């Protein structure tokens, strides 16, 4: 099946700097969740910005359902109604003091009429479970609430693919759980989700597929396979997850039957 | 033994807001590491700022070796040469153009002569293992490097107690490992360390003592006891750590002998 979004041999260098990476390929299968892992500074954010049209590859192509993305104004508008990026720091995306005004920005840029904009805003706030924050000023919200508003701003464009840069950074465990539940509901409603992280436990708990970016190479595969490959994780300067390690020990000692899945959280034990 | 730093029944409210908490007591034993845990928004940062003289309790006292801290200019100077706070975002602490200038800020404010300032800076950079960054402009450093420079800026005042707010936030696993190793070296050299986090695994791996702030109450005790109390952790909206959970299962099935310590990282398995 054609992936919904893919990168083919993309390279990128910021103006006047050495290339961040050269020739990476990635396929995002439709309707699934993909975790992009790697240590800090390896280019995860750059790759996400390439996938969402925010940067243009110096070589290679980004493809939407197999067709190369056009970087004309129209082509970019088309891509952005399909793929939305949520940055790590919500303050980088929230420009309005009013939650409703901020979320309405994307739909208005699409040229939708006022009543449809209102409907989109209400829908996005409901999906993020923050309808009650509609009247609150952005600057009096907590970090976790601002994060949700930023995601709602992306959802208001009804993207088919939602791309999140370190979505759980700065959230406490309860906040992480709540956000993962919301993302799961989005996925169930048909949205494809890509998220970067350097937390292997988190990726193991949440992702269907994984891509590990290390030393300029991208390793891709099913999360269950890739995230249990300790040699690869070590090479990528990541810490192996508890779940697979515990599962292995328990199976070795016969506590878990051979075919049973690895535990995902300590509560599974 | 008298704790090196303590809070006795401290309450605090920001101007015109309801109190963050009322009547908390905490003792920081000398030469050990204490983890302060709790969900976001519960007042961890406020408590750390009270302990380091950045805020003055509305009721209650902060004590240095059993004597109440004086909030006179002289009293605060004295406290701050003994207790230093490192904020979560290093950019809030770096305001000079170069690393050396930044780290020298504290010693210069102490009024030390130039050669002693230089010695202090060199010592702090060496302790944080960033002597090679001395002449670099701060804004060209990576996040992890900036974090180390921020800590060096605090160490240059030669504090007996180093207080860190979410020191590992934003660091990747390799960065976390390296920072924990550096903090261990500081502790070995006699520095008492207090750090806030909402990562129970991290606290379990690193701290001697723990304090859990939940719903306005502070629960304190040895890390090994407190961090295995699942009911308490759940009440504090924290996720139980893998280590103790895995240890319990392994002991129950006879894989680990009854007295053996819990694993601290998946690599221990």
């Amino acid at each position, binding site marked *: 099946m054609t992936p919904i979004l893919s990168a083919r041999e993309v390279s990128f260098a910021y103006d006047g700097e050495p290339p961040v990476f050269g020739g990476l390929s990635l396929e995002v299968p439709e309707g699934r969740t993909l975790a992009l892992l790697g240590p800090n500074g390896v280019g995860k954010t750059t790759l996400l910005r390439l996938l969402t049209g925010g940067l243009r590859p110096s070589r290679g192509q980004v493809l939407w359902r197999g067709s190369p993305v056009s970087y004309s104004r129209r082509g970019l508008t088309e891509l952005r109604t399909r793929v939305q990026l949520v940055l790590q720091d919500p303050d980088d995306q929230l*420009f309005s003091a009013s939650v409703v005004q901020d979320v309405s920005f994307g739909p208005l840029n699409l040229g939708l009429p006022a009543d449809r904009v209102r409907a989109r805003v209400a829908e996005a706030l409901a999906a993020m479970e923050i309808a009650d924050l509609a009247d609150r000023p952005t600057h009096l919200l907590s970090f976790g609430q601002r994060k949700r508003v930023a995601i709602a701003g992306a959802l208001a464009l009804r993207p088919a693919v939602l791309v999140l840069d370190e979505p759980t950074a700065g959230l406490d465990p309860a906040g992480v759980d709540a956000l993962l539940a919301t993302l799961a509901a989005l996925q169930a409603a048909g949205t494809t989700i890509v998220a970067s992280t350097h937390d292997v436990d988190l990726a193991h708990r949440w992702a269907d597929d994984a891509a590990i970016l290390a030393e300029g190479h991208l390793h891709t595969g099913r999360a269950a396979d890739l995230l249990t490959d300790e040699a690869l994780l070590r090479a990528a300067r990541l810490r192996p997850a508890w779940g697979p390690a515990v599962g292995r020990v328990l199976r070795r000692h016969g506590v878990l039957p051979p075919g049973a899945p690895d535990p995902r959280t300590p509560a599974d034990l | 033994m008298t704790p090196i730093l303590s809070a006795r029944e401290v309450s605090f409210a920001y101007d015109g807001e309801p109190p963050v908490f009322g009547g908390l007591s905490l003792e920081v034993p000398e030469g050990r590491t204490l983890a302060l845990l709790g969900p976001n928004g519960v007042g961890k940062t406020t408590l750390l700022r009270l302990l380091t003289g950045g805020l003055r309790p509305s009721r209650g006292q902060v004590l240095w070796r059993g004597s109440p801290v004086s909030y006179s200019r002289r009293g605060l100077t004295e406290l701050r040469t003994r207790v230093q706070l490192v904020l979560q975002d290093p950019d809030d602490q770096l305001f*000079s*153009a*170069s690393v050396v200038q930044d780290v020298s800020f504290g010693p210069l404010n102490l009024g030390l002569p130039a050669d002693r300032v230089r010695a202090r800076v060199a010592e702090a950079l060496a302790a944080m293992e960033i002597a090679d960054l001395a002449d670099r*402009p*701060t*804004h060209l450093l990576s996040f992890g490097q900036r974090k180390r420079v921020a800590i060096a800026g605090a160490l240059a005042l030669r504090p007996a107690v180093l207080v860190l707010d979410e020191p590992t936030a934003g660091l990747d696993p390799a960065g976390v490992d390296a920072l924990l190793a550096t903090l261990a070296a500081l502790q070995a050299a006699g520095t008492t360390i207090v750090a806030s986090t909402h990562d129970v695994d991290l606290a379990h791996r690193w701290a001697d003592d723990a304090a859990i702030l939940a719903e306005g109450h502070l629960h304190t005790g040895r890390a090994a006891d407190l961090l295995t109390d699942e009911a308490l952790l759940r009440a504090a909206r924290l996720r139980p750590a893998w280590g103790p959970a895995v240890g319990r299962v392994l002991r129950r099935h006879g894989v680990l002998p009854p007295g053996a310590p819990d694993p601290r990282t998946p690599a221990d398995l």
Partner: protein
Amino acid sequence: MHIAEGYLPVSHAVAWSVAAAPFVVHGATVLSRRVKDSPEDKLLLGASGAFCFVLSALKIPSVTGSCSHPTGTGLGAILFRPPAMTVLGTITLLFQALLLAHGGLTTLGANVFSMAVAGPWAGFGAYLLVRRLGLLPAVFAGAFVADLTTYCVTTAQLALAFPDAESGFAGALAKFGGIFAVTQIPLAISEGLLTVLVVRLLRTSAAADLTRLGVLRPDRTEATA
């Protein structure tokens, strides 16, 4: 030195609003053109405005030992040019009136004239005159003159509104001038010093921005001076 809401008689409030209006309109026209050419400038203007507001909220020690707030108009005029500073200053003054009750809505015109028109233009003029002698002396001159001009204009505004019973405008000028000089002249010196400290650091930490804003010359010989 913000003239509080209701302090000026209605006729004076109206007159100063009329006097300030052409400058604000001119500034707004300049800005609109700039933003149309490069949309990203709108975000930089937002940042600049926020910076100006925060700068004017800093407490700085004055030479007399008391504390006061800088106007920030000199640095603003040097960094963003007087027309832009008139607009940013007007917005800042509106926010100060509504968020801090510093200055008022009916006195907005008078405050805009002293702090967002006279101060920036005088400061920028002084800056240009001294620029040959080097960046930092020029920055000091710009900030000092902008602050002092603001104070002089406000004094004149008050003296016009409340002339002395015997000696009229001149006497009132002396009275208002005298009573506010105690805080304002040391403050002007302090603001000049602070602005020099800030620009000196910016020369290393934000050389590219200063060059783009036209404060540093592109050859960057001053960046290392």
